[in-house]
């Protein structure tokens, strides 16, 4: 979690938000980008907001259905703090209206659960383009 560069470039700081420990570990383990540096994981929107203020991530993966503060509300708050943040929603909610709402709030990508490692990495690559 230091400030070392990767191939001469500043790494992208990654925050993973999901109420499932298994999913948080899965995303951390499966993402294959050496320029992504995990700075924290959170189990709900409140925790995410606190960690966001402390770690200033560039990339966030965001679940939607979570206790205390859901992902949609959290996205709005994160984007208000840092408009340039890149947010990938990773959610089981598969209706179009939810995806559209998340994008309107400021998300940059949407990946449905369940997902393969390849789908995850393609979605993250798209996000960092």
């Amino acid at each position, binding site marked *: 979690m230091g400030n070392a560069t990767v191939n001469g470039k500043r790494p992208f700081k990654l925050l993973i938000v999901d109420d499932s420990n298994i999913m948080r570990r899965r995303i951390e383990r499966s993402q294959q980008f050496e320029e992504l540096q995990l700075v924290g994981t959170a189990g709900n929107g409140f925790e995410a907001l606190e960690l966001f203020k402390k770690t200033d991530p560039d990339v966030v993966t965001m679940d939607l259905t979570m206790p205390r503060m859901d992902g949609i509300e959290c996205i709005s708050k994160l984007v208000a703090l840092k408009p340039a943040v890149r947010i990938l929603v990773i959610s*089981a909610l598969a209706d179009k209206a939810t995806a559209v709402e998340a994008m309107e709030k400021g998300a940059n990508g949407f990946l449905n*659960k369940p997902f*393969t490692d390849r789908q995850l990495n393609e979605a993250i690559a798209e996000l960092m383009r």
Partner: protein
Amino acid sequence: MLYEQELKTFVEGTTNFFEVAAQHPASIGSPYLMEGSPSVHEYTGVINISGKREGVVYFTAPKAMLTVLLMKMQENDFSHETMKDLVGEVANTISGNARRDFGRDFVISVPSVLSGEKPALPQRPGLRSFIIPINWRSHSAKLVVSLT
């Protein structure tokens, strides 16, 4: 009460979960209807449904099946807490995927998890349940769908 096409949504969601997350397809038995609370396995993930439909969706599975599922997902933590996390996540994923057909007014709760052989399952009086039998590798589980 569920229509046949709606039941198909849950069958497809279950099939998709095992194909993608567990990388091994499940065999889905013929769904059947029953009154009262069905028997459950050691771990049960419950999703409460509200909005245009009301009721519950739950996924119940034995520890042995969940252990293999975790191994297939490259997990190395097989604790009680992780088993609970997994059944909740399976129930959440299948219920959330159902919104592709039911729409956003099919509101799902965060998962609650019950463990033990005779937990107190939420059941609305007079509401019948569809049971979707799931066979995966040598294990059996079920998805229970009980909706207005």
